């Protein structure tokens, strides 16, 4: 039943029932819930360029599909005779609805009521929403816009409590292994609200209006003496373009809601289902001529990997996750002949595409997402190796890189590799034939090895080069000699790579592969469990 329905039933209908008074009160209470924090609070919210929680829910869900649960919660006042005067609603709204015809559970904070403060919260409501999503095996969407705990709670409760929410807290990690969880940060999200943002598979924050932090500026200043405004402390530049705490940034609330819908379109409702397929008008045989020359012959020149991906996958199907962090690796969801796939690729324009600490963390999380929801992975490789240098060592890059490599090796989803250019060293070794159905393809521009030739020659022929009459000429001669072994055709002769292909055939081959991949996905449905990696 929609909000509008509940509001309109009471008007104009003459009931002939002994329960007329109670029914009238029910409708009155529903209207009070719909009034949220009152017209002043709503106006203030709009003036800030923000939607109310009910408007957000309406934009998120398919038209008229919201079924609210717990609408009557709130703080009521009664006159001396015990008649209802007013209900100030609880500042959490929960319920069920549909995104692209598929059921989801949603919980959203109402900032028009005491700034979403936990003073007027009934935490049981969002715990119920989490449990409902788990029980119904449908995705959960969190619309987070809450200022966190308040000292006034102590006065209200006349006591303090040990932090936590009993049974449901134990359920939360399970939730992430069962159903997709999407979080949208829509205002300042501190403390528990920040937890809700990060306890998700995909998170997005609205630029300038959303911030995420363990504690806001008013706690930071007296706590550690750091005076900083909320945007500098936890705005999009910090979290969507650096820390990795939030995956994506959004230009507006509508954009954020659209991104949440988009993400869910690629995923199954739960881990017991295969990811959904959509109709596709893009031909599986499309050969994009640009692919024949998209990688420059001059190995010093980088190129735009995203252009290659756009030419291969279904038209306009790519949805990027975490573009600005660990940016030497690109992670996307996309489609091949309508089938959902995960896309992982190196970006040579960023740190040469190297496995940085940030990229390693991004890969680990992304691969876990794919493995959890059985999304087949297509991996476009141009991997120069693990990031090097003092700063990289201080960041613990090698350990994080090995962790990412182990995550890749533990996937049980079909995996397909396309070697575009480089694949070197420890990081290059990560893209082996681990997943089922992995036929590895290489473009003629691909080359690989344990060690790049220039550096390798330098190390192995140090004395030889130093004692030569013209050391540079000797080095060049050695590099030229060893370079002949780098042709992917030589590797193919020994079946070290399964196929070397014309780049223009990539789409057709991957569309063939994705059919095979989806044939075997049902064998592995259900929850995944893994070892501790390191």
């Amino acid at each position, binding site marked *: 039943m929609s909000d509008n329905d509940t509001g309109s039933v009471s008007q104009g209908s003459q009931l002939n029932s002994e329960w007329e008074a109670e029914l009238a009160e029910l409708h009155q209470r529903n209207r009070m819930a719909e009034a949220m924090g009152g017209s002043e609070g709503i106006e203030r919210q709009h003036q800030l360029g923000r939607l109310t929680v009910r408007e957000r829910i309406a934009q998120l869900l398919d038209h008229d599909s919201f079924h609210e649960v717990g609408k009557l919660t709130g703080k009521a006042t009664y006159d001396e005779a015990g008649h209802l005067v007013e209900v100030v609603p609880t500042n959490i709204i929960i319920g069920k609805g549909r995104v692209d015809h598929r059921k989801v559970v949603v919980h959203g904070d109402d900032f028009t009521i005491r700034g979403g403060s936990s003073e007027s919260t009934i935490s049981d409501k969002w715990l119920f929403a989490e449990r409902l999503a788990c029980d119904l095996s449908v995705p959960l969407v969190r619309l987070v816009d809450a200022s966190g705990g308040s000292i006034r709670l102590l006065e209200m409760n006349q006591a303090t409590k040990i932090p936590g929410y009993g049974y449901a807290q134990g359920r939360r990690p399970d939730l992430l292994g069962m159903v997709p969880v999407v979080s949208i940060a829509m205002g300042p999200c501190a403390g528990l609200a920040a937890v809700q943002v990060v306890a998700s598979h995909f998170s997005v924050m609205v630029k300038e209006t959303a911030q995420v932090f363990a504690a806001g500026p008013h706690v930071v200043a007296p706590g550690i003496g750091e005076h900083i405004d909320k945007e500098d402390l936890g705005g999009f530049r910090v979290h969507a373009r650096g820390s990795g705490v939030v995956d994506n940034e959004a230009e507006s609330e509508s954009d954020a809601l659209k991104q949440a819908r988009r993400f869910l379109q690629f995923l199954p409702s739960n881990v017991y289902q295969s990811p959904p397929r959509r109709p596709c008008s893009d031909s599986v045989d499309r050969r994009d001529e640009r692919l024949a020359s998209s990688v420059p012959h001059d190995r010093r020149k980088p190129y735009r990997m995203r252009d290659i991906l756009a030419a291969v996958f279904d038209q306009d199907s790519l949805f990027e996750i975490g573009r600005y962090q660990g940016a030497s690796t690109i992670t996307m969801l996309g489609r091949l002949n309508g089938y959902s796939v995960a896309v992982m690729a190196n970006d040579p*324009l960023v*740190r040469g595409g190297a496995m940085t600490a940030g990229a390693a963390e991004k890969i680990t999380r992304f691969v876990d997402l794919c493995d959890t929801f059985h999304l087949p992975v297509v991996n476009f490789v141009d991997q120069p190796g693990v990031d090097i*240098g003092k700063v990289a060592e201080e960041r613990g890059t090698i350990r994080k890189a090995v962790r990412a490599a182990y995550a890749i090796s533990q996937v049980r989803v079909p995996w397909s590799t396309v070697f575009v250019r480089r694949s070197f060293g420890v990081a290059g070794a990560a893209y082996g034939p681990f997943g089922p159905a992995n036929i590895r393809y290489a473009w003629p521009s691909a080359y690989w090895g344990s060690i790049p030739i220039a550096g390798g020659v330098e190390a192995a022929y140090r004395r030889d080069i130093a004692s030569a009459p013209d050391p540079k000429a000797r080095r060049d001669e050695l590099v030229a000699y060893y370079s002949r072994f780098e042709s992917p055709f030589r590797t193919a002769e020994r079946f070290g790579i399964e196929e070397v292909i014309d780049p223009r055939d990539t789409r057709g081959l991957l569309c063939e592969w994705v059919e095979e991949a989806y044939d075997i996905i049902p064998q592995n449905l259900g929850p995944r469990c893994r070892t501790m990696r390191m």
Partner: protein
Amino acid sequence: MIVQVSADLTGTVWKIMVNIGDQVAEGDALAIMESMKMEIPVMAPEAGEVVEIPVQEGDVVQEGTPVVRLKV
């Protein structure tokens, strides 16, 4: 506000692609670094105006060194 665009890896500043006062769009190459035997661009994270270029071509810079400052 001023956004500092830094070298995201250690290497040599090979080419500077902009001048002070230039308007740049998000994703524009501001400078090209030479590192790991490749030409790797330093790109504008946001649109803005170039207000300072604290490096010169040929400088060897550490990761995190400011290359361009943009007014956004």
